[in-house]
Each structure stands twice: as structure tokens, then as C-alpha cells.
């Protein structure tokens, strides 16, 4: 029995707490019944029926009361708290829920209108039968109060329905809800796992779908697969995945752009069922090295729900697969032989070499067809093919007998536009090779002897200058002392081309320790310089082969020669690892809205930090606008920090250029990727099928909120079921046989019977 008072809800009940055996009480009851019968029979002959009934009744009540007392009735009064079964109402507040429907209201607003007490009785009705717990979720689930319902923000970065529901079930494991009422558009972007767990949890889930899959329209570039690194002149396959909701029968152009210029276009016809998906292939052939930004995009169409997902940007770095070297040699010597072997052994070098095996003055003793000689294709090489090489080496080669002077102009142009050139010594090099006053002398880091008699056979050693000790070409060991020692151990060179001097803008890496006629000392032996966008090198000896073969005889190793050639090659072609301006980022990618930070280093020609470098940097945003970027010098010489806020998704192109005195270094640039932390702006198609699946797996039902035939609230309550439970707060127990009224009642019955017997004259 329940009753409500001002102090709470109470429940009363009788409990029988007998201590005698029930069999004994039953025996006693049987005895009382026999006695009562005997009395009844006895009174039948002596009194009127009314008196008989009265007396028997009184006796019977007394016997019952005695039996009752023996059964020890206890009055239990409990103060209880009434508990309603719980129901979880879960609302999707991810970004896709902010999309507007046909009526102009967002999906989330529809949910708010359905639940808000001011606009609907749904929540109130549910609260009468259930203890409603409100939750919101996007990438994770968390509770919210009714007061916050109207201000639910929406806009979460992603939608993870199964993980959120699994977390909710786990957290309520001790007191599982009666059911879950889930409001979502079903645009699940989380993992596919979790449904089995929900099924085994045996909590029915009623899923309510928002949005309309049949009227949803969107085109999305879902993904792009392309290598981030490729090689020059190698075809690259770019594969884009296009998805479409709606637009059946329409032909959609898909465009591949590079830095805003259209590279290729494919057209896709939307067929079949929604969502439509198709792979789109592009093939591109990089024609220049560098880092490039490509975009696959589709123009926005009418009534498209999202346009942010109509394009994807990706970077491709194009590098040389091989360094193409043209080596022209005037006569086969050991210097050619070991240089050729060193270049051939380098797997990243593609060597094309031409060696003059016979000069016009050599005497031929067989017909031409018995000689393996081939024509020297000077015209093709020096008028058409120069740009195809990364490095041109003239090794003991005089051009005079083989091609006209103006071909050397082409070499100068080639270098000024970014090519690399090296001249190695010999009897046919430098002044003796006829290069005085030619475009080759212009690009060399040395000025030649005008008298053309520059070749000296003299034993000498190469001595590194201070610049040479740190330069990447002549740095054979990271340890400065070890490096000096190595060079001191190098075999002597047996000849030198004497030059007039090194040019002012050149860097002399090594000099000869020989003394020559005319009092020439410290003759330059190895010098480098930048010319235009390119680099040149002069090595004034044809005996460097001894650093290979002779050193191998001494040390059983020719590694230092090979290393020297390798470093010489890399420096000349401006290997990225040897850049003098280096941009580095603090991370490989940055989240939208965060700061993008990093460091820029500037090195001198000798690769020591440049303390007085002037640095300018420009930043190109993903949409192509240029904005300034602040550079702050650090305490380290030649080092700067940059920082900017990533306000757009895509690739930022940061370029830096350094100046030291009158010299301008080549710029470096770096592509910095900024990504959106979530996927909600990429995929927002309602997925009611997924919601139906959840309902089926959990024993629930699904309906669309906008469905006019949606279930009523009463049917929802009936579906979820459940009965209120109560919780005992306080309890008091009273044994009735210990109370006076019951005892008095027994006495009254017996006394009344005695008085009536007396009155009836039975005594």
C-alpha cells in the first residue's frame, strides 16, 4: 500500500515473522477448529441459533487472534523513492547537422524543435515515463542539460556514431538505459566496427534520421592518389575518386591543374545509383624539376550541399632520377679512365662521354670500316642537347679542331640559365686548349694565361685554403682535422695548368704548393664560382687519377677519390642537400587555425653560417595570393625563424632568398600543408541505411524525423516499455503481537463471550 505525505512517499505491508514451526501452528489451529465445532454442537441444543452464532463467532475470533499472534505479524512501513527507467536521447552535433534542408532549417534545428519543450511535447512525454539523459556526440559523446538544448552548437569535426554509442553503453553499464533514442543524419565517418558490441549490449536503439537521402545533392573529390615524389620525364599516374549524390545522367568535367593552370580534363557521366563513385585517371609528364602543387577539382553545381569537397590539392616533387653528365675528353688518359669509372660507379649518374681517340694528324692504316670510331656529334650536342644535361665536363679537351667558337656561347648561356660546367686540366685545357678570350673563360672561376703556355710538369701537392677546408666538395671528413690529414696524404700531382689568377667572385678551394717559373706560388688548383643561375669549376690538373689508383695501392681503398668526384658533381648541379638557403618546417603538416612555424638557414659559399645575410621571404596562400611573412633572426648566425597563422586549407608556398653583399643566392622554397582537422566539410550525405542497420542490429526501429507517418510518442513509450522501480530510503518494523490493542482484542472477545454465556444461563 502506498500513500503520499508531505514528507514523502510511504509504503506499508504486513510481514509474518513466526518463530514456531508452521506445523505446530497448524496443529493448534486444527485443535481450535475441533473445539469450536464441539462448542457449536453443544450450543445447538441449549440456545437459540442467534446466541449460538454469536458465541461461536466470538470464540472463533479469539482463536484466530491467538493464532495470528502466534504467526507474529509485523507491520513494515517504508519510505520509498520512485525511480523511472532511464532513456538516453543522443543528438548528433557534427558539422553535417548544420546543413540546411529544403525548409531552410538545419538538420540540427529540426532535432531541437522536436525536443524543445516550447515547440514539442516529445521530451516532456518521455520525461513522464523515463528519466531522460541527454547526450550530444560528434567524434565523442558527452552529456548536456536541457537548458543547453536550444544552444547546441553543432559543427563537430567528424561523426563517429558507433564509437559514441559504444562509449555511452560502456559508461552506463551499471545502470543500463531502457533504450536509446538517436537523432542523426547517419553520415558516419568513423570506423566500421562497433555494431556487434551494440548488438550484444541488448539495448534497443531507435534511430531517427535527419536529412533526405533522395534529395541530397553533392559532388565530391573523395581522394587523390599520386606519388609525392617522382622523377623528371617519368610519366606520373594521378588517380582521383569522384563521388556524386544526385545529378544522375549529368556529365561532369574533372580538371587537373598545376599552379592554377589546367593540365588535363576528364569528363565523367553520373550513372547508376546514388552514391555514384568512379575513378578518374590522369597521366602527367613532368618536364622540370621542383615542387609543384596540383589540384583535382570539379566546378560547383546547382543545389550542391557542399562545395569545400569539390577539390583536392596535393604536392608532387619532381627530382632528377639521374644526374646527366656530358664528359668530353680530348684524348684518353688515366685521368679520363678513372674519372669515367667514378662517374659510372655512381648509380645516380647517367654518363654520356665522348673521347677523341684519333686526331686529324694521326695516321690511318686501315679502312674506316675497320675502326670502331664514330662521328663526334658536336652540332647536336652543343646546339640542341645542352639543356638535357645537368653537368658538362671538358677534360683535357680543346674545342678548336671540332666545333666553332660560337658553340661555346651556347655553353655560357646554358650555365647562366642554371647548368653546370667543369674544366679539368691537361695539355689541351685552359689556355693551351685555346680558351683564352672565349665564353668559356667568362664562365670559369679563373682568368687564363694569355700566352697559352700554361701546362707545367711539376710534382706538387694540393693544399686546401680555409674555404676549401669547409667546402662540401673538399670535405672528405666531417672532422676538420681528419679532413686536413686526408688531403695531406693524397698523392702528389705531376702537372698543373697555371692560370693568371682566380676571379674576384670565385672561391679558391685549393692551391698548389709547387713553385713555378716567374716566381708563381700558391697557384690556384681548384676553384669554383656561380655564374648566373649555374655553377662552374676549374681543376687545374690532370693527375687527380693518382688520388684513386695510387691511394688504392697505399690504403687498399679509393673511396676518397670517389667521394671527391661525387661531391664535386653534387655541388655543381646544386643538389638540394647542398643548398645555401634552407627552409625547414617544425612539422610535416599543420592544422587549420594553428600557427605554422619553422627555421630558415643561410650559408656562405664555404658553407659556414652567413652572419650578415639579408633574407626576404614571400608566402603564397593556397588560393594564390602573396602575403608577407615575418622573419625573426635567432641567436645563431644566418638563422631565422618564420611564423604565420594557417587560415586556409591547402598548400602554402614559402619562398626565401638571401643576399650577402652583392651576391644573391638562389632561393629555396618549401610547400607547407595545412589540413582541416575533421572531415565534416568533405562528406555530409545522409546515410539512413546505416541508421537502419543500427536499429536492426540492436532490436530497435528506424524512422525519418520528417516522415509524416513517423511513430507517435505513445508508441515510442510502448516500444521502450519499462516500469518504474522504487528505492527504499527508510524502514520501520512493528510487531503487532507486542501491541496492546491486539491483546485487548483477544480479552474483549473472551470477556464478551463469558458475559453472553452468563446472560444465556449457560453457567
Amino acid at each position, binding site marked *: 500500500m502506498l500513500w503520499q505525505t508531505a514528507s514523502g512517499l510511504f509504503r506499508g505491508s504486513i510481514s509474518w515473522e513466526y518463530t514456531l514451526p508452521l506445523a505446530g501452528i497448524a496443529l493448534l489451529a486444527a485443535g481450535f477448529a475441533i473445539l469450536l465445532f464441539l462448542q457449536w454442537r453443544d450450543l445447538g441444543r441449549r440456545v437459540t441459533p442467534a446466541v449460538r452464532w454469536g458465541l461461536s463467532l466470538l470464540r472463533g475470533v479469539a482463536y484466530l487472534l491467538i493464532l495470528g499472534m502466534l504467526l507474529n505479524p509485523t507491520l513494515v512501513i517504508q519510505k520509498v523513492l520512485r525511480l523511472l527507467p532511464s532513456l538516453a536521447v543522443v543528438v548528433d552535433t557534427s558539422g553535417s547537422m548544420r546543413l540546411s534542408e529544403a525548409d531552410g532549417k538545419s538538420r540540427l534545428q529540426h532535432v531541437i524543435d522536436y525536443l524543445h519543450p516550447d515547440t514539442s511535447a516529445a521530451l516532456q512525454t518521455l520525461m513522464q515515463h523515463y528519466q531522460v539523459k541527454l547526450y550530444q556526440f560528434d567524434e565523442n559523446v558527452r552529456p548536456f542539460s536541457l537548458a543547453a538544448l536550444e544552444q547546441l552548437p553543432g559543427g563537430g569535426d567528424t561523426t563517429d556514431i558507433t564509437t559514441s554509442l559504444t562509449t555511452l553503453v560502456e559508461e552506463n553499464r551499471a545502470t543500463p538505459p531502457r533504450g536509446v533514442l538517436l537523432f542523426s543524419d547517419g553520415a558516419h565517418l568513423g570506423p566500421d566496427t562497433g555494431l556487434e558490441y551494440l548488438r550484444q549490449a541488448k539495448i534497443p536503439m531507435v534511430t531517427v534520421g535527419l536529412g533526405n537521402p533522395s534529395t541530397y545533392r553533392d559532388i565530391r573529390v573523395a581522394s587523390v592518389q599520386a606519388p609525392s615524389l617522382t622523377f623528371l620525364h617519368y610519366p606520373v599516374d594521378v588517380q582521383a575518386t569522384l563521388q556524386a549524390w544526385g545529378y544522375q545522367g549529368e556529365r561532369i568535367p574533372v580538371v587537373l591543374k598545376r599552379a592554377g593552370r589546367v593540365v588535363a580534363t576528364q569528363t565523367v557521366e553520373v550513372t547508376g545509383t546514388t552514391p555514384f563513385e568512379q575513378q578518374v585517371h590522369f597521366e602527367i609528364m613532368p618536364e622540370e624539376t621542383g615542387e609543384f602543387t596540383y589540384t583535382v577539382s570539379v566546378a560547383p553545381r546547382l543545389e550542391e550541399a557542399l562545395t569545400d569537397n569539390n577539390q583536392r590539392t596535393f604536392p608532387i616533387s619532381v627530382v632528377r632520377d639521374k644526374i646527366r653528365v656530358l664528359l668530353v675528353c680530348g684524348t684518353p688518359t688515366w685521368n679520363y*679512365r678513372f674519372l669515367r669509372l667514378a662517374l659510372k660507379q655512381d648509380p645516380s649518374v647517367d654518363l654520356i662521354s665522348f673521347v677523341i*681517340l684519333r686526331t686529324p694528324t694521326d695516321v690511318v692504316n686501315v679502312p674506316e670500316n675497320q675502326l670502331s670510331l664514330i662521328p663526334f656529334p658536336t652540332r647536336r650536342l652543343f646546339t640542341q642537347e645542352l639543356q638535357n644535361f645537368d653537368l658538362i665536363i671538358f677534360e683535357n679537351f680543346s674545342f678548336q679542331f671540332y666545333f666553332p667558337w660560337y658553340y661555346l656561347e651556347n655553353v655560357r648561356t646554358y650555365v647562366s640559365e642554371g647548368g653546370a660546367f667543369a674544366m679539368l686540366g691537361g695539355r689541351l685545357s685552359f689556355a693551351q686548349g685555346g680558351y683564352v678570350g672565349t665564353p668559356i673563360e667568362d664562365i670559369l672561376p679563373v682568368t687564363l694565361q694569355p700566352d697559352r703556355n700554361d701546362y707545367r*710538369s711539376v710534382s706538387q701537392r694540393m693544399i686546401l685554403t680555409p674555404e676549401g677546408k669547409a667546402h662540401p666538395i673538399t670535405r672528405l671528413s666531417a672532422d676538420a682535422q681528419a679532413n686536413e690529414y686526408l688531403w695531406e696524404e693524397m698523392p702528389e700531382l705531376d702537372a698543373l695548368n697555371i692560370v693568371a689568377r682566380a676571379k674576384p667572385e670565385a672561391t679558391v678551394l685549393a692551391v698548389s704548393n709547387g713553385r713555378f717559373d716567374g716566381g708563381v706560388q700558391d697557384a690556384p688548383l681548384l676553384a669554383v664560382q656561380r655564374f648566373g643561375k649555374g655553377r662552374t669549376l676549374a681543376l687545374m690538373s690532370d693527375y687527380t687519377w693518382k688520388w684513386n689508383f695510387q691511394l688504392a695501392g697505399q690504403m687498399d681503398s679509393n673511396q676518397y677519390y670517389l667521394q671527391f668526384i661525387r661531391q664535386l658533381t653534387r655541388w655543381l648541379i646544386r643538389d638540394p642537400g647542398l643548398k645555401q638557403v634552407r627552409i625547414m618546417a617544425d612539422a610535416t603538416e599543420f592544422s587549420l587555425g594553428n600557427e605554422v612555424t619553422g627555421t630558415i638557414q643561410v650559408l656562405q659559399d664555404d658553407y659556414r653560417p652567413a652572419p650578415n645575410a639579408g633574407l626576404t621571404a614571400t608566402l603564397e596562400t593556397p588560393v594564390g595570393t602573396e602575403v608577407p611573412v615575418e622573419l625573426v633572426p635567432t641567436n645563431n648566425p644566418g638563422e631565422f625563424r618564420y611564423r604565420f597563422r594557417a587560415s586556409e586549407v591547402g598548400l602554402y608556398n614559402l619562398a626565401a632568398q638571401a643576399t650577402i653583399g652583392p651576391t644573391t643566392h638562389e632561393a629555396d622554397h618549401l610547400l607547407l600543408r595545412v589540413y582541416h582537422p575533421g572531415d565534416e566539410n568533405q562528406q555530409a550525405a545522409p546515410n539512413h541505411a546505416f541508421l537502419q542497420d543500427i536499429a536492426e542490429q540492436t532490436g530497435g526501429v528506424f524512422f525519418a524525423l520528417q516522415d509524416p507517418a513517423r511513430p507517435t510518442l505513445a508508441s515510442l513509450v510502448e516500444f521502450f516499455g519499462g516500469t518504474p522501480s522504487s528505492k527504499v530510503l527508510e524502514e520501520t518494523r512493528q510487531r503487532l503481537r507486542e501491541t496492546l490493542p491486539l491483546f485487548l482484542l483477544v480479552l474483549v472477545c473472551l470477556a464478551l463471550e463469558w458475559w453472553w454465556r452468563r446472560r444465556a444461563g449457560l453457567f
Partner: protein
Amino acid sequence: MLSRRRFLHRTLLWATGAQAVLGLETASAAVALPAANTFILAQLQYRGGQWDPRPRATLSLMREVQLRTSVDTQDERQILTLQDPLLFSYPFLYMTGEQSFVPFTEQELTILRRYLLFGGLLLIDDARGNKGRDFDASVRRDVARLFPDQPLKILPPDHTVFRSFYLIRTVGGVRLVNPYLEGVHVGDRTPLLYCQNGLGAAWERDYLGNWVSPCHPGGEAQRLEAFKLGVNCVLYALTVNYKQDLIHIPFIRKKLG
């Protein structure tokens, strides 16, 4: 027009010839620094046997190379042993003999192996041509010790040494013991070449400029092939697989028919 270099060279030749008539002999002495990065042939002196049966053979060869090719050579050879500290200053080594010789020591083999692996070339010329005996037996014995895993093999007709200057189809010499050349391959090079046909004997002139030995059975044509092979060996040493570069192949194929 004759260049200054050629004029000086030919003058020298004449002077040498004049010296020969006058009975003056050019001494094979330690070499002073040459005027340019010239090719100097080194000849191996070894123990036992007869290491120098044809003293003037290499002179003829050097002159032939100088005459026909763009390579500047030095007439005088450099005589070296395997223990000579100057060995690694001369990447081309010529070895000849007629008789069996004392086996190389292990240290000598180590040095020679290093010499060949790091870019040197050894041309072995059997001056007698007795197969399986004498010099040939000693050569095969020591080559097997030098490269146990790389035996002497017959060079295929398209080997680079047959194309490095002349297109050679036959192997010459003072006699035709073998119509082929043998060699030891290491990687894509053949740093050791072996000919049993007596190349030196075919090259050798006396002081009057006459051929010392007639070539049988092919006569002067066979001698020419010997010179061509000698020139090719020098060019092969200097250019290695240059003639295997792709650009040469169509031309060579066309010339070979």
C-alpha cells in the same frame, strides 16, 4: 699542318733511329716526369724464367699507338716488380716470357690482385706458345691462385677489347696458337688479358727497323692484327667500356655488318 707536338715527336723518332744506327742504345731507366699525361707502359719483372725475351717489343707498340691514335705515349717502358713502390703509378702492366717462372708469393699476389681490382690492367703475352708447358703453365697456375673464383675464360668476339679502337675479328701474333684471347672478368671489366700468340715477337723491330720475327702462317697481315690488338689493349685500358656505351653500338654493328 704538323703540330709542334708531332714535329717534336718525329724528330725524336729520327734521332732514336740515328742513335740505333750509331749503336747507341736508349737506356731503360727510371722515368722523369713526362711532358704531359702520357701513356707509359710498365713491364713486369719476375723471378725465374725469362721476363724480357723481346726487349724492343714494347717500343714498337708505343710508337704504333702514338702514330695511330690520339694517345701520347712514351717510348721507354718502366720496368717494375710487384713489390715496387711505383707499381700503382702505372696502371698498365705488360708481362711476357717463354719459360716457366717462380710462383708469385702470396704478398705479390695480394698486391697484384689489388692492382687489378682498383683499375689496373695486366696484359700477359706468351712469347713461346707452348700450351700447357713452360710459361703458359706458370701463367695458368698463378692466375688460378690470383682469382680462384674467376678462371681464365675465352673472350667473346664482341668483347670491348676487340672494339676499343680497331674492329678486330682475328687475333694476330707471331704464331697462331689460339684464335682467341683469354681473360679474367671482374664485374664488368676484364683486368687481365692473356694471349698465347707471341704478340711481342710480332711487334719487335731491330735497331735498323726491321722485323725481328716472321709471322706464320699469315705473314704481315697477321703482324698487323698483332699490332691492332696491342693498340686495342692500350685503348681498352684507358677507356674501359667506353665502346659499350649505347651511342656506339649502332655504328659498330653497321661496320661489322
